[in-house]
């Protein structure tokens, strides 16, 4: 196991905690974006470029979905 993998795994774990701990919608959105990118890096260091590409496009397109709902909530609620 190479150090890069250890570091990425630790960051992913922290990222997951920060997403779950974020109780405010804006912070949640940001934390989730960061977490998505960390996962992409993790997939790359696990030698999975196909999965990394997939996760990347998903977090680019899926993120706006979350944002839209979040905004809708902020305004409607």
């Amino acid at each position, binding site marked *: 196991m190479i150090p890069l993998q250890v570091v990425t795994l630790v960051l992913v774990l922290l990222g997951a905690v920060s997403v779950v701990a974020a109780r405010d919608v804006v912070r*949640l959105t940001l934390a989730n974006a960061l977490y998505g990118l960390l996962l992409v890096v993790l997939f790359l260091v696990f030698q999975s470029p196909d999965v990394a590409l997939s996760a990347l496009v998903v977090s680019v397109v899926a993120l706006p979905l979350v944002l839209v709902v979040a905004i809708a909530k902020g305004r409607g609620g």
Partner: protein
Amino acid sequence: MSYFPYLVAGLVFMIGIAGVVTSRNLIHLVVCLSVAQSGTYILLLAIGYRSGGTAPIFKGISEKAKTVDPVVQALTLTDVVVSVVVAALLLALALDVQKNEETLDPEELPSMRS
């Protein structure tokens, strides 16, 4: 150290579930569910990893080169799609809940029973 990636995968999975149980906002709940699901990606890819292996793409490398397991990657690809698709569906449900009940807090939704 040879157990560390599995540990992270297991913890991420359970952290996500804990988020679902304690969530007070349906959007947060859906994101927590996708965090739990990301635990399964980590687990699958960690299982298929081989030390010193490259990605299973035989372009510019020898066909006898050591590569990581390709099957788990195919499974994770499907897993990623399932995750985003289920999240989108749940968010659509959450939007409708917000419209009907004017709240996103699962604890404030009216009880199902009498």
